[in-house]
């Protein structure tokens, strides 16, 4: 036992239970005590992660079930911050729709706990446990507004497809167990490296593992749930689904495929190329046709995750692995910056929604530049960032990934890079269309934008961060590189 390794998780678990009980005694309509307690918990967890990250050690704990390393802590820090931002953005929205109950906070914390478990998993079983804890919390959250038919439908869809995907993943992992005789990720790695394992069983299991991961990432052809869930779920919950879980999806892809199954990299990197190109194609093309902002952002997520997956593809190039660390750290930078850009985007959607009005059609943004030049500017920054236009952070994310695949100096990868930029060109169309609607069209809805000081400050900071990391992206890039190198070294 090494309890030290899982202190952040213990704090989360304990506090989630405490908050569930404390909330029973809260009568305040805005649930201020519960809210503050949750935010404080998240802040403590984030602080613990950053402290561990600075320690920089790799520690195994709980009979090697979990590992704490800089990679997990860096992602854990960002996941905790993402949930903090999510709760802050969604509080007013949830209150107006009678969703602001203790469950919202407790389940959010439990989903973060699931994410944390996945981030520090050193065993296939832990990956699965974390995944289920996160997913079950999210299913319940999507259905939180139970008198709202689209939300209920979305929850059903999410649950059924999510269960199917978990089944795929579990089946694939059990194949791995059958072939290698271990669930421990480093053990599986060693067993495969020994070369004594039947390759066809491994490859068979791998297909299921990749399918399960593809579902969690929302990559084509396992993307069907994404648009429906994003659109159907109450926006506050969409924010939760679209934010921190993406970090977890990156982490389990890294833990399972890279740390565990990198002996099969030649097989899975080809599958990822297919998933990635498919996602960029379908995501970008389908997004053009959308009129619902949330659905458009869902397709945009699919395309962005496809781009991120490109970072995993140069693992083994010309039978060496020089490009691997470069690719993973670029993908990590991509996913972190993407999560915060998306949070901001949905933050704006929440800001424009009010009692009895869901600002979820793209047309609801019409003339935002005249209603509120400031928020229109912030939203424009998010859109240009998602489109990958400098000087926003989205450009450097794309640059990092492209750089990782172009520097392999293999023709196939360079063709892949050209395809990726052409798909982002298609993507640029629907992102700048949002800017067009905000800046060039006349407002239809002229209602004043009401928001608490907290939300306004946070949104402005979020926009400033996207711009600031665009001007000075070096620090975060270096942290990602450092974390990935540490994780690969052990």
């Amino acid at each position: 036992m090494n309890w030290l390794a899982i202190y952040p998780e213990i704090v989360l678990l304990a506090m989630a239970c405490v908050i569930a009980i404390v909330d029973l005694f809260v009568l305040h309509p805005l649930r201020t005590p519960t809210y503050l307690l949750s935010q404080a918990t998240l802040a403590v967890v984030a602080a613990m992660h950053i402290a561990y990250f600075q320690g920089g050690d790799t520690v195994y704990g709980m009979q090697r079930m979990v590992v704490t390393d800089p990679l997990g802590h860096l992602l854990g820090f960002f996941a905790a911050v993402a949930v903090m931002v999510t709760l802050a953005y969604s509080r007013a929205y949830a209150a107006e729709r009678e969703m602001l109950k203790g469950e919202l906070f407790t389940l959010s914390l439990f989903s973060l706990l699931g994410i944390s478990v996945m981030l520090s998993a050193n065993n296939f079983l832990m990956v699965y446990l974390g995944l289920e804890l996160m997913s079950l919390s999210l299913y319940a959250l999507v259905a939180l507004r139970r008198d709202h038919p689209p939300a209920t439908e979305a929850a059903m869809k999410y649950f059924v497809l999510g269960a199917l995907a978990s089944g795929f993943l579990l089946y694939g992992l059990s194949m791995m167990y059958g072939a290698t005789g271990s669930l421990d990720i480093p053990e599986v790695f060693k067993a495969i490296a020994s070369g004594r394992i039947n390759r066809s069983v491994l490859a068979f299991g791998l297909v299921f593992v990749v399918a399960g991961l593809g579902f969690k990432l929302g990559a084509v052809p396992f993307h069907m749930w994404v648009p429906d869930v994003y659109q159907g779920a109450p926006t506050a919950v969409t924010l939760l689904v679209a934010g921190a879980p993406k970090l977890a999806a990156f982490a389990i892809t890294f833990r399972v495929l890279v740390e565990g199954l990198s002996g099969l990299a030649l097989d899975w990197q080809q599958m990822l190329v297919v998933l990635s190109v498919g996602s960029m194609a379908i995501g970008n093309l389908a997004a053009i046709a959308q009129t619902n902002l949330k659905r458009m952002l869902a397709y945009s997520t699919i395309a962005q995750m496809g781009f991120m997956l490109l970072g995993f593809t140069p693992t083994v190039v010309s039978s060496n692995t020089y490009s691997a660390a470069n690719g993973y750290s670029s993908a990590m930078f991509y996913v972190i910056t993407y999560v915060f850009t998306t949070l901001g985007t949905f933050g704006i959607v929440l800001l424009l929604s009010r009692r009895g009005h869901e600002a979820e059609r793209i047309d609801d943004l019409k003339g935002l530049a005249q209603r509120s030049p400031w928020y229109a500017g912030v939203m424009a920054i998010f859109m240009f960032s998602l489109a990958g236009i400098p000087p926003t952070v989205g450009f450097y994310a794309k640059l990092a990934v492209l750089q990782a695949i172009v520097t392999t100096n293999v023709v196939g990868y360079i063709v892949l890079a050209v395809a990726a930029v052409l798909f982002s060109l298609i993507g640029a169309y629907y992102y700048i269309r949002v800017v067009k609607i905000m800046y060039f069209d006349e407002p239809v809805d002229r209602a004043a934008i009401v928001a608490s000081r907290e939300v306004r400050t946070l949104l402005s900071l979020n926009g400033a961060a996207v711009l600031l990391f665009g001007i000075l992206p070096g620090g975060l890039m270096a942290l990602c590189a450092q974390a990935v190198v540490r994780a690969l070294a052990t």
Partner: protein
Amino acid sequence: MGLLSLAVWLPIASGIVLLALGRDGSAGAVRWVALLAALASFLVTLPLIKGFDAGTAAMQFQENLAWIDRFNVRYHLGVDGISVWFVLLTAFITLVVVIAGWEAITYRLNQYMAALLILSGLMVGVFCALDGLLFYVFFEATLIPMYIIVGVWGGPNRIYAAFKFFLYTLSGSLLMLVALIYLYYKSGGSFDILVWHALPLALPTQTLLFFAFFAAFAVKVPMWPVHTWLPDVHPEAPTGGSAVLAAIMLKLGAYGFLRFSLPITPDASRQWAWLVIALSVIAVIYIGLVALVQKDMKKLVAYSSIAHMGFVTLGFFLFSELGLAGGIVQMISHGFVSAAMFLCIGVLYDRMHSHEIASFGGVVNTMPTYTALVVFFAMANCGLPGTAGFVGEWMVILASVKANFWLGALAATALVLGAAYTLWMVKRVYFGAIANEQVRKLVDASRREVLMLALLALAVLWLGVYPKPFTDVMQTSVTELLRHVAVSKIN
């Protein structure tokens, strides 16, 4: 902070201040702040020329700081004899355009002025950047303010024009991004343009890189057949936007040829020079003919811009000192003349809200001072000796005659066409009988309008009569560039 950083960031910072504090209620203050900012931004570029050492081709006023360590990207600025004039040109045109937008922009003035100033800083950044990625960031970032300028303050069909502008130019530059990353790899992890200049490359690699760069720069110049976005954007853009677009943004593409294509891929450039020359000659002649039949003044000037930029690319790819220097002089002169032409059209547009040639006639009767200036700029546009338009075109034509007589002869027909479409437009719009009641009621140019046009007229005249200061500064750099291009980089 170095002079170049100041030239880049002063307008951007003032733009952000205007954006944050300006309101339509205080339009008067906004105008003056914008004017002062533009003036200050122009003044800080003057010491660049004063302190410029024309005797060396090395980069001057260099600033080199670490920026993104992970990719070894540096904040590296510097100018040589070629780029220094464009820094000044950008700052000068911005000043004139701020004056032009004084009353013409009636709503969201602070955002307009801010977009102009930010755009100006970004374009100066493009001309100073010596780091490939920094160049790309500035190059792409210019799309955002221009997109907003066209889309918010443009004409009736502005949204189509804004999208076409954005996506067309983005499509070209994304391929360049892949090329930049590949060069980063090839040079062993450096984004420094000067390192790339010295980098040996095999011919097939050079060819691919050449075409990736060509995609970005040819769209921006724009060269035939990827020019179609320009005539759609110009008529919809507000006057100031058109002026900046024609005077400076098109130069970004031509400048890219000088900074990237020629020195980084010299062998491929020489190998494919015939293609660029052929496209340039088509631009000069065919687009000249297209300009002749335009019914809209702005479209006409847009086509004339494409034809004039054809001279620039033609001059570059002749690989002679005269041609290269001529191309650069033509870029500067076109900067002044095209800005002036668009501002002249803007003066009429502000009064009659039309740039159809057919809505005018006999304007000289009601606006004599203004027409005098217009005719002067029209002469410059035809390339009349004594004006800026003449010097560059003449040098390029001489260089092409030297290279091949028939090429020279073809290029020279452009002078005839240029005179034809420009003068015919002048005749129809400004001379003859007064066409209608509206023209009869026109008031002559105000002092502000005369001031902005006179500033440009002085520049046009100076460059036309005494171009020596311009050519002297660029001489060493041009010679060095040609020497560099002549040496094969195939290892």
